[in-house]
């Protein structure tokens, strides 16, 4: 008996050992396998020469330097990852050479820590690079033997475009896990200290970084496209940053420019720039694709020492070929206006937008009216919170009526904070109801209908704090990379600490359409003109409960589908400070961002967002009365011919000091009505003349004066300085504008 038992135990143990020894191998490729795949390819590796061509370009493979170049036929213009002047150097070396000769940078996870590898070192010097011809292009496979990772990149020429894709499905890896790949880091680059050269990054409305070196520190920029991923447990906001709303970037150098558009996988990408580095002599901007979900954990050991550990998803994103498309620009097109033009064309093609058509429901004035918020109060000394009304529907009507009567404007109105807890978060979409404390909505709605005032009601279909409407507090939340509920606390403006007890959740992405349907039903019942989807249009997040939701992938489809559903019901869609995909599918855009994140390296903010969307969609600037400098914000609206916008409420009293919402104290209608009238009247004639026109030209005449020319040839000069200035024969008043 004992013997049998011993044998059984031994057998079980043996089986365990065997099965354990196979654990950890699943899903990975052994080096032999990787080698095998390369030995197959090696035979087909092509030699140097032209591998593809069209009417405009020749695609050339240099097998010695393992470099892809695009030559514009009939000219001496070459486009390549390695700047052509550097490429021609006979004996290049140094840090700059490593970076500039690398087709990509790779971030990989080794022992739960992030490391960076450069393809020049990892594949060219310590590995192998193989090229093979594909339709209209070339496929280059980088085998990094030390890292046991191989990455295939594909280069194609397509008309005037040069496309670079990462073949994600064919990336091979073993124990080191690929986290991100920065594609062609020097394709969009400019030589340092070159006059009039700059790097364009789409931070906020867009900004330029000048490429000087030596006089100041190296400037860097790195930000995720479409903002931070809210499904991340790492939530720390140390400063205010504007999100990247458009996956486009570029570089201008002499009479050339290159515009890069992330045409596939924008949601999983990041835009990085490094400018004025004395070691390289070049400045560049590039896209980085984040191929894995990652989360940071802090682990404290017995000695109380806290260390940072990275947790990543097992698989990579469910996207075959994230792609960056580069469009070279020459001569007069080689500037940010040229980049805006190609980006606008790309959006029109992708979203089927028509240019030069009259815009429906356009207005020269947009009003955002706030309902109310919760305040902290007490009942016989016992703490409680209750809703305080700032603007009832009747008062909102009075405000709009007053504006209409006094200045003759026909504003578009957005109502915000009329739900369950006013502006405060509680049930999803404010419980999809109007709280009776705000009075009778129908009176306002009927009045607006009668007076042709478009009325939109805002719903937050993303954040919630309490269950309801088919949403469960815990199980309806999106998941982070380590499978916890995605939630955020309120960040203290004083010390940036997250106030975790008051956190709110991010709704599971597949539940958003259901909530939108409920909003549509409610809106139909109330005969609403339009729905405003602020949070859906300017937030993007992952849901790691499914591979399709890794790294924000697919979030844009949600609002596109939502907008389609809303429109099918005869209701208009408004978005606020929205990302390009949301702006493209909405009927009007309010609170369009007019500034960048103000990084140290940002030298000149440009209204790239407005240049792109003006004339395509009705668009208004972010509320003038909430701006840092109201007179400058008014001039920014003038600069781009976008509609004026104001945030208003009817009442503020000292009770609101006990509210978490500070907005009421800045937007009392009684205080602002004079200035609204003054600004509106002074710009009415000009704004109405360009309201439907695209921007044809935009340039800085001097540091303080900007000239904008619209498609209908109306020209405006805007002077931001405190003294009147003469430009191009025109005297522009201080802090004013002149148009012709």
């Amino acid at each position: 008996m004992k013997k049998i038992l011993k044998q059984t135990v031994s057998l079980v143990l043996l089986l365990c050992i065997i099965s354990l020894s196979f654990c950890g191998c699943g899903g990975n490729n052994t080096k032999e396998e990787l080698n095998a795949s390369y030995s197959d390819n090696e035979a087909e590796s092509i030699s140097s020469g032209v591998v593809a061509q069209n009417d405009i370009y020749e695609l050339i493979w240099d097998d010695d330097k393992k470099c892809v170049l695009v030559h514009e036929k009939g000219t001496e213009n070459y486009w390549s990852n390695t700047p052509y002047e550097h490429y021609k150097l006979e004996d290049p070396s140094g840090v700059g050479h490593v970076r500039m000769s690398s087709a990509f940078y790779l971030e990989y996870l080794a022992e739960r820590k992030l490391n960076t590898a450069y393809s020049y070192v990892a594949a060219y010097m310590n590995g192998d690079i193989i090229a093979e011809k594909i339709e209209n292009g070339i496929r280059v496979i980088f085998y990094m033997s030390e890292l046991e990772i191989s990455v295939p990149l594909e280069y194609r020429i397509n008309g005037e475009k040069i496309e670079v894709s990462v073949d994600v499905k064919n990336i091979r890896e073993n124990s080191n896990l690929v986290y991100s790949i920065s594609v062609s880091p020097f394709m969009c680059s400019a030589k340092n200290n070159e006059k009039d050269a700059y790097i364009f990054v789409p931070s906020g409305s867009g900004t330029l970084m000048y490429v000087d070196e030596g006089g100041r520190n190296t400037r860097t920029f790195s930000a995720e496209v479409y903002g931070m991923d809210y499904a991340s447990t790492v939530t720390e906001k140390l400063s205010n940053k504007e999100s990247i709303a458009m996956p486009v970037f570029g570089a201008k150098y002499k009479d050339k420019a290159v515009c890069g558009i992330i045409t596939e996988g924008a949601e999983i990408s990041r835009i990085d720039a490094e400018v004025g580095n004395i070691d390289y002599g070049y400045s560049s901007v590039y896209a980085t694709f984040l191929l894995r979900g990652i989360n940071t954990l802090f682990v404290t050991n017995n000695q109380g020492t806290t260390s940072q550990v990275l947790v990543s998803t097992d698989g990579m994103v469910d996207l075959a070929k994230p792609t960056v498309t580069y469009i070279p620009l020459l001569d007069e097109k080689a500037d940010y206006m040229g980049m805006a033009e190609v980006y606008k064309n790309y959006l029109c093609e992708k979203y089927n937008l028509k240019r030069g058509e009259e815009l429906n429901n356009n207005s020269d004035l947009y009003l955002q009216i706030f309902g109310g918020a919760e305040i902290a109060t007490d009942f016989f000394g016992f703490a409680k919170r209750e809703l305080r009304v700032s603007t009832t529907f009747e008062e909102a009507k009075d405000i709009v009526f007053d504006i209409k009567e006094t200045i003759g404007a026909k504003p578009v109105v957005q109502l915000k904070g009329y739900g369950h807890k006013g502006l405060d978060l509680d049930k999803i979409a404010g419980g999809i109801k109007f709280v009776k404390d705000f009075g009778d909505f129908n009176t306002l709605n009927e009045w607006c209908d009668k007076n042709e005032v478009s009325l939109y009601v805002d719903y937050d279909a993303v954040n919630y704090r309490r269950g309801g409407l088919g949403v469960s507090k815990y199980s309806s939340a999106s998941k982070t990379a380590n499978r916890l509920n995605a939630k955020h606390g309120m960040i203290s403006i004083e010390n940036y600490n997250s106030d975790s007890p008051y956190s709110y959740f991010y709704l599971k992405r597949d539940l958003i359409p259901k909530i939108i349907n409920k909003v549509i039903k409610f809106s139909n019942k109330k005969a609403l003109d339009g729905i405003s989807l602020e949070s859906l249009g300017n937030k993007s997040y992952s849901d790691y409960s499914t591979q399709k939701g890794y790294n924000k992938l697919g979030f844009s489809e949600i609002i596109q589908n939502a907008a389609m559903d809303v429109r099918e019901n005869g209701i208009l869609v408004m978005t606020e400070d929205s990302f390009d995909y949301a702006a493209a599918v909405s009927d009007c855009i309010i609170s369009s961002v007019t500034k960048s994140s103000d990084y140290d390296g940002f030298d000149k903010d440009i209204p790239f967002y407005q240049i792109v969307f003006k004339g395509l969609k009705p668009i208004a600037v972010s509320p003038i009365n909430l701006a840092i400098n109201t007179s400058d914000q008014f001039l920014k609206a003038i600069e781009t011919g976008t509609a004026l916008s104001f945030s208003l409420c009817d009442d503020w009293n000292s009770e609101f000091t006990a509210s978490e919402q500070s907005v009421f104290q800045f937007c009392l209608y009684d205080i602002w009505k004079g200035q609204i009238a003054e600004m509106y009247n002074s710009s009415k004639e000009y704004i109405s003349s360009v309201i439907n026109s695209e921007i044809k030209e935009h340039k800085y005449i001097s540091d303080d004066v900007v000239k904008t020319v619209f498609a209908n040839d109306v020209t405006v000069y805007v002077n931001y300085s405190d003294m009147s200035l003469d430009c191009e024969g025109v005297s522009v008043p201080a802090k004013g504008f002149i148009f012709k």
Partner: protein
Amino acid sequence: MAFKKFLRKILVTVMSVFVLISSLTLSASAISGIEEPAYTNYFYEHDGTSKRIVEDRPVYVNSHVIDGRTLGLDSFYIVNDVYSTDDAVYILDSGNGRIVVLNKDYSLKKTIDSFVMNGEIQELNEPQGIYVDSEENIYIADTENMRVLVCDINGKVSQCFTAPKSELIPDDFDFFPINMLIDKSGYLYILTRGSYYGAMMYDLDRNFVGFYGANSVSVTILEGISSFINSIFETNEKLANSVKKLPYQFYDFDTDSSGFIYTVSPSSTGQIKKLNLKGTNTLKYKKGISVVSAESFNFGALDTYTDLSGKERKQSFSSIAVDEKGFIYALDSSYGKVYIYDSKCNNIAVFGGGVGAGYQKGTFVSASKIEISNEDLLICDAEKNCITVMSRTDYGNLIMHAGYLTDDGEFEEAEPLWKEVLTYNSNRQVAYRGLALVNLNSENYDKAMEYAELGLDQESYAAAYEQIISIFLNKHLWWILLIVVGLIIGVTVLILKPKKEENRLNRFKTLSDVFKIISHPIDLAAEMRAKRAGSLTAATLILIIFYFSQIAVKQWSGFMYVLPNSSFNPMYVLLGSVGVVILWVVCHWGVSAIFSGKATLRNIYIVSSYSMLPLIFYNIVFVVVSYFVVPSSSSFITVLQMIAYAVVAILLVFTLINLQEYSLGKLFGVSVVTVFGMLVSAFLIFMVLTLGQNFISFAVNIISEGIYR
């Protein structure tokens, strides 16, 4: 009896629910309000016992950056200091060992690359500070060379200060100068690194005369006791090796037009000091209606920053500048923030940030120095190798000018500015305070009171109210006197009138018992022993009324006495009123049981509760009177309070002596032991609650984990 039981249950349930509700606090998330630059803008508003954060429009914005590129020079390398005079701005580019001189429009005037002393070129070694006197002599704190060089605009060194030889200099003193200053009378002050003796002071002939204005060490009672106990029990060796609490050193200083020297230290309170000639801190702030020393005033953040790994980053004020109106600009290098205070310690604005990683404009990595140039603020960043110029916004101009005018007593000019400030932010406390002063000055007292209440300015409110009362009395004095005389006569007649019917109170035995404690406490005690007089229900009701009267004092008293307190927690009131009585009852019963006391728990509870009647009476009187009597005439309220406490003590003594059958001496002894017992019990309860809280938190964490997964 059954009804009593039922009533008791109801009371207990209601109390429990109230306690439970009061322990819950709710909050919500904020949507973004105002558009902001890269950094947050806010100010601190005082609401009685605490201060709170109010979001605000930017008062200063980054207008431009001065670096090598803007001046056409090589990049700065470690910019440690900047100094502004009427004609120029001097930048100490420490890493490059040079001084860059700018015109007031921040264009390049000159660079001083070499310093020559006695024909020899002097290399600077990590200089930390720069100062320029009225004759354009440049003082350079050549820190690592342990000297201060004085040179002219061409770099010719005329004077060199090294460690002075003086008996006043301690043996362990190292002369690492970091900053210099010359006061109104021409005395030179040198700050040295790591010195907690204060600034080194030199007379007009530049002889060292001693140390000036050292910080003192503040020791709390607990720390004192702990130190005393340690000194008894620890060995000499251990004591010698223990960490001594030393005063904070001054990190920076500046002087105003009146000759006061302002210093800044990284302490947790009193970070900013305004020193007079003697080196005494004269900075004061308004606390309610009194003006008190700013030694205990926290000029910094309410809470410390904790990074994602849970590590705290402490605030550190490292630089200070004062404008000609006495407004203070303090730089916190740890968080990269600028704090602006007016001369009365009212917070005007807080902005900036970065927490050591601020790569956006207006945020900082290693902010080293703040300086005022015209209306601009210049902030050096040693890491970013630049100087950020922060310029006032239109809103900032309004606030600052309105503040200056109010300080100067030019109220009429200030009024429209304050009103305009409110158009930008309706929640600006300092504007309401300013308007209260303006209206007070223009004898518009009703308005002054209205504004003072919005600005939480009790002093102006009381002053305006006093004037209103005074005017009222002047107008109606004869009528008031007549009414008072009439009332006195009426009351006298009522008192002297023979009683025709039995006191109504006697019809209600319980009520009669309750009030008997006031009129005949000894009789009540005797009846309690003999006939079980007194009622538990009545005693409980009195405790509840006592609790609510305490709440009323804290929450419903007149504005002149009590400011609205957003962090009010009724739990503390409950513990401080009912909790203390209950603890007293239980402990006294327990102690008296040991010391042969005869009183039952029931009787102790009843007399203790009944004895609270004088306090209830006082609380009610206080609440009513607080609306009518200005604080300056409120000494009778203090007397009334003392009487109320004395009566409570007397009632307890009379009743307990009889109930316990103690002598006065024994009761006193037992009471002392009871108080000791109360302290021990409170400590134990605290321990149990803390452990319970930890256990609940542990359980909640486990449940949350389960739910999340």
